[in-house]
């Protein structure tokens, strides 16, 4: 069977390949020109990109607006903490923690997704429900301060959160080698590249095309024999799984996790990043999220409220000026200008040329 594709017929041209590859090459080269602190901050920005990528899959391509990415972020982060604080610094413990954290977020996503999609919850109610889930989790974790709230050796520590988790390690004769600094950055970058490629492949497969049909017109899609509940649940689980990966990597990066990572402000951030970057553009979402997180971090030095105000202002501007997202909006105008300047006809209006993802 031919592989289905959103892309127009024909081979991708050199300019498109260059456009796709440039951010990755730049991201690969950045640590060579940056100090350790900057590289650490860059890794932090990339860690959040998984959450945004997951939301772009769900929202941009599956039509499911979830405010619950942070719930799965937190579940995975806390699980990583519980596993590693109980089993120590061995490489099996850290990698086991990462996998168990990821598995925990996927299992919870599966259960929640089953209730949502097989319970016929639709539209804005999915957003309300997922937001409720993350806020309930935050509230619950915030009251786990007492010594009775421990899993084995791991104290949950209420509002202060868990800390002291070891980084990932690789086995080595003698002591294991910890993956830190540049090594951690490149590990995150490689994982992000894999997640991006797999997400693209998913969207350019028959599953992705069915998903697009469901997003556009669920009733019609069902009448093509598509099981819309199953498709929506699967993309929801995939998106939440990416948020889970984000959470575990965040915990590894900072060696801590707190309930505020599941709070209202945290829950709104992925929606702002994805809306700003362009929810249908996976590459745009990764780049946009990294830039916006970097901007937030830089402004947070002067006070976290400035970063929030700026994020709100950016979101307002994007919603009004470029509803499809900042990056796709800029690219669209650049293409028009380029076509005008070169007297080259722009793609015919209404064709599938320039489809994102």
């Amino acid at each position: 069977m031919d592989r289905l594709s959103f892309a127009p017929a024909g081979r991708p041209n050199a300019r498109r390949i260059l456009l796709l590859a440039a951010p990755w090459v730049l991201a690969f080269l950045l640590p060579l020109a940056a100090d350790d602190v900057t590289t650490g901050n860059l890794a932090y920005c990339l860690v959040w990109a998984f959450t945004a990528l997951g939301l772009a899959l769900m929202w941009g391509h599956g039509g499911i607006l979830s405010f619950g990415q942070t719930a799965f972020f937190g579940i995975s982060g806390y699980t990583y903490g519980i596993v590693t604080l109980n089993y120590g610094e061995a490489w099996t413990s850290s990698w086991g923690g990462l996998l168990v954290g990821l598995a925990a977020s996927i299992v919870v996503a599966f259960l929640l997704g089953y209730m949502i999609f097989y319970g016929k919850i639709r539209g804005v109610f999915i957003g309300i429900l997922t937001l409720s889930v993350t806020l309930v989790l935050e509230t619950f974790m915030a009251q786990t301060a007492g010594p009775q709230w421990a899993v084995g050796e791991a104290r949950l520590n209420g509002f202060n959160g868990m800390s002291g988790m070891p980084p990932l390690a690789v086995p080595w004769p003698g002591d294991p080698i910890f993956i830190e600094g540049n090594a951690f950055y490149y590990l995150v970058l490689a994982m992000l590249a894999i997640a991006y490629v797999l997400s693209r492949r998913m969207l350019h497969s028959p599953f992705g095309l069915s998903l697009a049909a469901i997003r556009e017109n669920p009733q019609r899609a069902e009448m093509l024999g598509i099981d819309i509940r199953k498709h929506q649940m699967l993309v929801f689980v995939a998106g939440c799984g990416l948020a889970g990966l984000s959470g575990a990597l965040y915990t590894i990066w900072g060696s801590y996790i707190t309930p505020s990572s599941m709070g209202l402000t945290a829950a709104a951030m992925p929606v702002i990043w994805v809306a700003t970057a362009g929810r249908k553009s996976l590459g745009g979402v990764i780049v946009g999220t990294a830039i916006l997180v970097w901007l937030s971090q830089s402004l947070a030095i002067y006070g976290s409220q400035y970063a929030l105000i700026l994020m709100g202002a950016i979101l307002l501007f994007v919603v009004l000026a470029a509803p499809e997202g900042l990056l796709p909006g800029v690219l669209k105008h650049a293409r028009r200008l380029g076509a005008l300047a070169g007297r080259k006809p722009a793609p015919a209006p209404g064709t599938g040329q320039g489809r994102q993802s």
Partner: protein
Amino acid sequence: MTTLLETRGLTKRFGGAHVINGIDFRIDAGEIRCVIGPNGAGKSTFFKLLTGEHRPTSGSIAFLGQDLSHVLPHRRIRMGMSIKFQIPGVFPELTVREHLQLGLHRAGPQAQALESLLEQFNLEPEADVLAANLSHGKKQWLEIALAVSLRPKLLFLDEPVAGMSVEETYATGELILRLREQGLTIMVVDHDMTFVKQIASRVTVLHGGRLFADGPLAEILARDDVAEIYLGKRK
């Protein structure tokens, strides 16, 4: 003659309103059945009961001998039904080609080739155009092509020529006749009697939620009572 679809005592009530009342209906393989009736006759509800959008209050629907009472809409499609809706339900952000890829993929490896479908439905020039930008007539044809791409055994067409010009209506009729020649069984719900006369092999008349008349086209059109309830006049 193989019976594809059969209803027995099919009834649908919405609260106190009896919209469909005990309809016994049958479609055999190879026919083009037109379901007609005045406004409020229950055509749309009957259609939605067959496709699974509504659940019957009582009675049964069988497709190829299999009871459909608890079969979800998407599973009915996988069993060999296919539907073209009255209002074109195309996917605005997908191209014509992507629509047909979607349908062909779902039909499995024996599916008709994409290019052949584009040609058959005169959609070649618009293959890479987004569905949102098609004319109304082309949207209707894309809807039918999408339904045909699933390689169904029974094709439901709900008002396939609504909003079409006379020329487009005639071309659509010819298209439907060719689909029948290719072995497809087709059920059409429509108001346009010229179109019905062009394509129908049998006609079913619904009136007041009941099956009022059922038979070959010429026989039904010759009945005074049909003319009276359908056209509101006496011969």
